[in-house]
């Protein structure tokens, strides 16, 4: 694999790292299996592309895209919390509706952003003047954005409000007994999650130079793949490490996919991407169970080290 292809994989991995954070927030923190991302990702791209083409400042356009994603998350949360529609189904409804909404926003199925001023333009001009090629500068820029988002999310999840959100996902009954309005937590969490997804879409549109309504297909599986991969390679109880693992998982996933598509002996085509993703996620879900004996061993060690058993006896 060439350096250009490698850095391209890192860049797209970083962009989808933001989506991995959104998926992590919904699936892992709120325990809300949310498929809205397949619609909120292209929504972010559509909003940012339309606004930039219309001459709006790209930073403002990106902020509006995030808000649009948050609104989509609120719709899913509303369907689930207010009307008791099963979370999966509620999110599928929003996702399907967003397909039409995205075409309405752009006025057509796709929008080109080539030669438009994006949030990357000043950075690329500056690094270009220093002699750095764009394929190096782009992943650096996206990396900085991802770092900021990461830091904010990690900080949020260790705050009192973030802790309440974690309790909402982990034990809603206990959360309510502790005075936490779990319904409101779901609204806020879903808005944040899909705000991240839309930010991912906005970054994708600006780094790749286009927005396409079909680009959302399978985003959720890619996001999940990143989260699961990250959890497998970096196990931790420290929030900062947990969120870093999501982004790392996303980058590694993209590198693995790039390697697979580049390996001629496999005979894979770019259009096999979705199949490869589905197989990878299925394997990631099957393998941890197949490894059960090892996991049990690990747990046993952890238990005796912290003296769980001994202290338990003392309590009795």
């Amino acid at each position, binding site marked *: 694999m060439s350096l250009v292809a490698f850095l391209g994989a890192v860049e797209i991995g970083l962009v989808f790292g933001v989506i991995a954070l959104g998926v992590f927030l919904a699936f892992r923190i709120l325990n809300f299996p949310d498929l809205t991302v397949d619609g909120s990702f292209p929504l972010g791209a559509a909003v940012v592309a339309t606004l930039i083409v219309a001459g709006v400042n790209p930073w403002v356009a990106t902020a509006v895209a995030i808000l649009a994603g948050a609104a989509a998350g609120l719709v899913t949360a509303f369907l689930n919390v207010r009307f008791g529609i099963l979370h999966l189904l509620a999110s599928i409804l929003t996702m399907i509706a967003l397909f039409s909404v995205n075409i309405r926003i752009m006025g057509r199925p796709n929008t080109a952003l080539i030669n438009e001023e994006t949030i990357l333009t000043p950075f690329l001009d500056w690094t270009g003047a220093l002699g750095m090629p764009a394929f190096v500068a782009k992943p650096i820029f996206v990396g900085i954005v991802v770092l900021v988002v990461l830091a904010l999310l990690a900080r949020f999840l260790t705050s009192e409000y973030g*802790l309440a959100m974690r309790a909402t996902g982990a034990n809603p009954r206990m959360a309510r007994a502790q005075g936490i309005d779990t319904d409101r937590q779901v609204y806020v969490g879903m808005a944040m999650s899909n705000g991240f997804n839309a930010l991912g879409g906005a970054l994708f549109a600006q780094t790749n130079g286009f927005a396409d309504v079909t680009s959302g297909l399978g985003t959720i599986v890619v996001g999940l793949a990143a989260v699961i991969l990250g959890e497998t390679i970096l196990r931790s109880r420290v929030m900062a490490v947990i969120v870093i693992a999501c982004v790392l998982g996303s980058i590694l996933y993209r590198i693995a996919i790039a390697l697979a598509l580049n390996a001629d002996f496999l005979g894979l085509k770019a259009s096999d991407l979705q199949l490869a993703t589905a197989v990878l996620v299925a394997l990631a879900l099957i393998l941890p169970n197949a490894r059960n004996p090892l996991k049990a061993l690990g747990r046993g060690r952890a238990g005796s080290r912290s003296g769980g058993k001994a202290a338990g006896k003392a309590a009795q």
Partner: protein
Amino acid sequence: MIGVSDIHVTFGAGTPLETKALDGVDLEIPTGQFVTVIGSNGAGKSTLLNVVTGDIRPDQGRVVVGGTDVTRWSAPRRARMVARVFQDPMAGTCEALSIEENLALAAARGHGRGLAPALGADRRERFRETVARLGLGLESRLGDRMGLLSGGQRQAVSLLMATLSGMKVLLLDEHTAALDPRTGTFVLDLTRQIVAELGLTVLMVTHSMRHALDCGDRTIMMHEGRIVFDVAGAERDGLDVPDLLQLFTRVRGEQLADDSLLLG
């Protein structure tokens, strides 16, 4: 401090399985009183408790806590005034979070939850002192996952959590029933200690007649959604478990006699 009046609760209304869980319950608990509730399965003990916490909305009736009518308040809103410990040790604490994170959740109750870090150095210090009194060695394990603790330890921490933010009302829902007898005694002793120390108003549901008489200063018995027996003071001090049992069978017998009269 706690007052419920004319509470009616029906489960599965309009279906063949319709049951009257509470059928006109009136109960007034003054500040600082420790009331124990006994009764057979389905008598409405837990339903009564859930009506006070707001987890069950009554069809009819009023709930007052600390002089405020809270009948229309949601459960999270009432949680600012009312703390509870569940029967299931898994329900009252969050096993995915650490001990100190659980304590931080409880400490923030009743105040707004903002974006300040949930755990600071002085908070940790306060938590360490709080759990040290349990004598379970948990003060050195504050960062451990709650899931690593035994059921008894989790109930003990649940009790501490209920007291962290200055609650005045404590509701206990058979909180020792899922524990083995020795651990149950430990948790019950701790309960009495904490209640006495903080002067809490307590409603404790139990199905142990022993505990019902040994704890607190008033005992009520429920049967088929009604309070059938309410005893306090000297009369209660004179009671022993056999007396209570006898009373229990008599109440049920009378109920049967009534029914047979009605049906006859």
